[in-house]
């Protein structure tokens, strides 16, 4: 919201501060000022001059030589403007002065443009006559300015006086960020009230007085509100014998500063009151209102309506309409109709100030794609009491500015107004909440400055809250008022006392920290991917139709198809990131991610889905399947999962290479999978090399993890090691051999280590050569050959039973 300082000062006349002081102080009391602009920032040494005579330039057809009276002297100015005549009063910037911009109205230079005496085609020129664009404004806000030429003042401008003053440009425009709870501050009066309290000055609201003529409004118009749920108040007044004319300068300037184009006195007054009171108003040409009757009711689905901007709109049955005896004449709170709009020929007018349901207006405006100044105000939920004040203010301005004759009385169709809220409070409770020790006096003064009246009761106070302060509901709100004006910065800084609590992170978070540590030590950097993705991901990952993984939660209003489902597989993120790196020619990239997948328990969603944290790792470049397997085992080791991990090659993961994938099984539970990415998937992601991934399902893993550690003695007795070399049918997995070694090795078995595996020459077709070094040790004695031979025999028997031949 933008407002000129001059407008605020109209209600806080004693306000006297620099723009920066104003910005700081208002921000610290909660009316945040984002920025300000001094309209005269780059306007220097500009006076009102009167053109005494004009002569042609001897050497240039397009230039003229003007003799200009600037009060204390007459100067000669050469100009190319063609809209000036003798006798015109114009802004003149003198030698050494400054203007804000060029005559073309382009972006304004930061430091303005300095003007000096000079010669134009050999003729001296002692200054420059200015266009409105050179003065930093535009025809939008000075509609009387010529399209391309020098600004011309009204005849009563004083020659030699400050032209910037005459244009009302000695002003500063402040841009506010109003918080949504302070509906009252979306108005100049609301902000002025805050400013008065902030600076301890008197707040002087306008005096509203409507004389009215001898007629009764009821003889002109009747109002019927059908859909009372959407319209809690509808006030109507009538103005006749309207004289359309420009509104006064001061009104135009204030509207312009708020970013509203001045049009004519009637339109300007409605806009002025909307800004001043925060209450949108609308004016209908009463002669177009059939039966002189207003009916407020919902539209029908599919109704078509032409708004006053000439656009046809399609309505639905939740949109509230203003109708007359026969037809629709306006979309309530959003925009009036073409059929009833005020034209220059209007003679009798109906003023409307109403209170519509904010949420309904917001939704209707959205469905129509038509958000107006009015709807923006209504959607915040306005105070119904304000409507009557505003319509009276508008009518008093009509009379004051002589724009017409106000018919006496108001048609006011109003639902019973809610009682004013009453808050009981004690100052000690406020001090308790703030951690302060302020006296009753200090608090009451603050309330008083905000026009909040507190009455003493038994042991506390009672405050009747004015209706415009919808935000004040209880003691906490009053505490905020005290804090704002006592000063947030003056409230002490303490630390909470009371019972000590233990700071901690959960076990799950500790495991996740370990995952990050291990990944990092293994060379993986952490990535971050989106939780939502495209349903096309399933095709890219070769996940077949009908696979349960395709049952994803769908967002009803996504940013687009690419962000439309909540992921059920984590791989897309990491593969996309690998592809990004690959295409940017980054070498040997290792990435991991710790984030959720979202598995619905039912679709459509009726209960919270299963959000499962996935530890997803992926790399390309240096390394292979077993590199990734190593990372997985490092992680399991680091979180105390030191039982044997088994790998099932029949993992059935369509996105992985069919011969290079495995489920990771711990204690019978599938904890994830790893493998080489299927070449077709690599193609789909545009990864031009082999890539490897592992996905670990953290909820399952957390269940097995433990940070308990128990020391086992460092062996004192020597170990005995035996090497065996085998010829093994190809289909037998090394894992099966190891399982047999474990099963048969007995309690003296310490470790086994694969030291050779070979296929090819010298080994018969369909077999492979595998060699192990098996280590035995006893904690309490040196082993004998007999001990070891016994254990080895069992192992060898077992292996023999698997069809494995021992190589001698």
């Amino acid at each position: 919201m933008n407002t000129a300082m001059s407008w605020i000062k109209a209600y806080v006349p004693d306000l006297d501060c620099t723009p920066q002081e104003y910005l700081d102080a208002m921000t610290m009391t909660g009316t945040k000022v984002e920025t300000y602009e001094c309209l005269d920032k780059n306007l220097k040494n500009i006076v009102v001059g009167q053109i005494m005579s004009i002569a042609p330039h001897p050497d240039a057809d397009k230039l003229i030589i003007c003799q200009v009276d600037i009060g204390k002297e007459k100067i000669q100015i050469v100009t190319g403007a063609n809209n000036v005549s003798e006798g015109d009063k114009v802004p003149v910037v003198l030698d050494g002065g400054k203007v804000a911009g060029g005559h073309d109205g382009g972006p304004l230079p930061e430091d303005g443009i300095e003007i000096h005496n000079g010669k134009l085609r050999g003729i001296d020129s002692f200054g420059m006559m200015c266009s409105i664009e050179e003065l930093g404004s535009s025809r939008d806000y000075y509609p009387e300015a010529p399209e391309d030429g020098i600004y011309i003042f009204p005849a009563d401008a004083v020659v030699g006086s400050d032209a910037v003053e005459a244009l009302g440009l000695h002003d500063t425009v402040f841009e506010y960020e109003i918080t949504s709870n302070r509906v009252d501050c979306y108005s100049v009066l609301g902000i002025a009230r805050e400013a008065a309290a902030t600076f301890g000055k008197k707040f002087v609201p306008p005096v509203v007085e409507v004389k009215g003529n001898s007629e009764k409004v009821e003889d002109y118009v009747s109002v019927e509100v059908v859909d009372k749920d959407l319209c809690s108040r509808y006030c109507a007044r009538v103005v006749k014998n309207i004289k359309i004319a420009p509104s006064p300068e001061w009104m135009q300037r204030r509207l312009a500063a708020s970013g509203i184009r001045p049009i004519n006195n009637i339109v300007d007054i409605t806009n002025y009151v909307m800004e001043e009171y925060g209450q949108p108003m609308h004016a209908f040409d009463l002669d177009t209102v059939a039966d002189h009757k207003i009916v407020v009711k919902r539209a029908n689905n599919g109704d078509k309506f032409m708004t006053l901007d000439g656009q046809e709109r399609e309505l639905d049955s939740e949109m509230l309409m203003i109708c007359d005896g026969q037809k629709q004449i306006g979309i309530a709170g959003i925009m009036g109709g073409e059929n009833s709009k005020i034209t220059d020929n209007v003679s009798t007018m109906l003023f409307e100030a109403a209170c519509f349901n904010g949420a309904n207006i917001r939704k209707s405006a959205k469905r129509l794609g038509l958000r107006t100044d009015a709807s923006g105000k209504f959607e915040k939920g306005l105070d119904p009491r304000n409507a009557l004040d505003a319509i009276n203010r508008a009518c008093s301005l009509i009379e004051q500015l002589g724009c017409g004759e106000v018919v006496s009385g108001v048609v006011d169709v109003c639902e019973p107004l809610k009682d004013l809220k009453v808050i009981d409070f004690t100052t000690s409770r406020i001090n308790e909440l703030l951690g302060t020790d302020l006296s009753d006096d200090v608090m009451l003064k603050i309330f008083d400055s905000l026009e909040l009246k507190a009455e003493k009761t038994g042991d506390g106070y009672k405050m009747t809250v004015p209706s415009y302060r919808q935000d004040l509901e209880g003691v906490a709100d009053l505490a905020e008022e005290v804090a704002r004006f006592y000063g947030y910065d003056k409230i002490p800084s303490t630390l909470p006392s009371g019972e000590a609590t233990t700071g901690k992170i959960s076990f799950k978070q500790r495991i996740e920290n370990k995952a990050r540590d291990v990944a990092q030590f293994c060379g993986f950097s952490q990535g971050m991917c989106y939780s939502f993705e495209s349903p096309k991901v399933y095709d890219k990952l070769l996940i077949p139709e009908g696979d349960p993984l395709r049952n994803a939660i769908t967002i009803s209003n996504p940013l687009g198809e690419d962000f439309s489902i909540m992921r059920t597989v984590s791989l897309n993120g990491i593969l996309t990131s690998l592809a990004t790196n690959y295409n940017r020619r980054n070498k040997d990239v290792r990435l991991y991610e710790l984030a959720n997948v979202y598995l619905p328990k039912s679709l459509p969603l009726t209960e919270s889905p299963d959000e499962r944290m996935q530890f997803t790792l992926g790399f390309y470049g240096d390394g292979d399947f077993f590199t990734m397997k190593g990372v997985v085992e490092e992680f399991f080791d680091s979180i105390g999962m030191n039982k044997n991990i088994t790998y099932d090659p029949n993992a059935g993961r369509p996105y992985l290479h069919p011969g290079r994938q495995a489920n990771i099984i711990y204690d019978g539970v599938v904890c994830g999978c790893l493998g080489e990415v299927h070449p077709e998937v690599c193609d789909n992601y545009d990864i031009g090399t082999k890539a490897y991934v592992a996905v670990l399902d953290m909820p399952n893993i957390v269940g097995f993890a433990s940070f308990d550690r128990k020391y086992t003695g460092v062996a004192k007795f020597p170990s005995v090691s035996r090497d065996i070399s085998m010829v093994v049918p190809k289909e037998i997995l090394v894992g099966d051999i190891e399982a047999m070694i474990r099963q048969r090795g007995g309690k003296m078995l310490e470790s086994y280590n694969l030291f050779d595996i070979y296929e090819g020459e010298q080994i018969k077709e369909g077999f492979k050569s595998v060699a192990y070094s098996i280590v035995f040790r006893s904690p309490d004695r040196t082993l004998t050959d007999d001990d070891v031979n016994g254990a080895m025999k069992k192992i060898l028997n077992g292996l023999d039973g698997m069809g494995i031949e021992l190589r001698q």
Partner: protein
Amino acid sequence: MKEKLEQIRNEALSQVKDCSEVSKLSEIRVNFLGKKGQLTNILKSMKDVAPEDRPKVGQLVNETRAEIEKVFDEAQLKLQRALRDAQMKKEVIDVTLPAKKNNVGHRHPNTIAREEVENIFVGMGYEVVEGPEIETDYYNFEALNIPADHPAKDEQDTFYINDKFLLRTQTSGTQVHVMEQGKLPIRMIAPGRVFRSDEVDATHSPSFHQIEGLVIDKHITFADLKGTLWEFAKELFGQDTKVRFRPHHFNFTEPSAEMDVSCFKCGGSGCRFCKGTGWIEILGCGMVHPNVLKMSKIDPDKYSGFAFGIGLERIALLKYEIDDMRLLYENDARFLKQF
């Protein structure tokens, strides 16, 4: 005898002098001083010496032995040194050759920021808790005093699944889950991913991260909120950091505030980084709204509390001077390596 000793001595000295290898030297040593060496052999012939001369000859033999041993030791030391020197010379390396790095990975800047914030609050006795990302309307809005038709619930900001479920727009809902458990006092922070319907650009992302904080106890005051968050700011941005609390509005707190920290670039004098104001907006906070306490069955007359919400991306972007939020989700290794 004497001459013989003299001869052995001279012979030994000359052989040592000519010897240039350590291995040869020990051969020579054995030859003269070993069990079967020349000097030992001399001692064997002592029986031929007159008994009265024996002490004298014995002394002479010992002196000779000592002298030869000394020369041997010196020579050996010298040779060993020469050998070591030669080896050192041979093993000179170019120390400016590239290092062999143990290519460790890197944490995401967001995670680093999160861990820093977490550590500060864990140190102050806060528990780190987590809540669901797919949340119900009740926890994300209603229980936080955001009623049904509030503009904050507008579809423009919130991703909806259906009437009941949505993607949480704030981590504040986790507060409610914790409050509902009814265990008081509460000191918690809740880090996590949140979602808002913003198109991706340099300063927006439809998914980002927040850390929510909540303290509920008897006698918690706005002063406690100020003190706690100032402490936090000093830990995160340095002990000289100043803070400024400005009134603001959030539905679930009253009074509410935004906290600015003194610009860590210019120290508060005003620069481009802080747009000349000397302050940088960091977080929103406030005293827990009585309605929020009531809805979670906590008596606002007995208990009070404060809450705050920190945007993690904002902290990461500020701390590391990252100028485009999209970098955080691109996962380019060259970016991630810098943290």
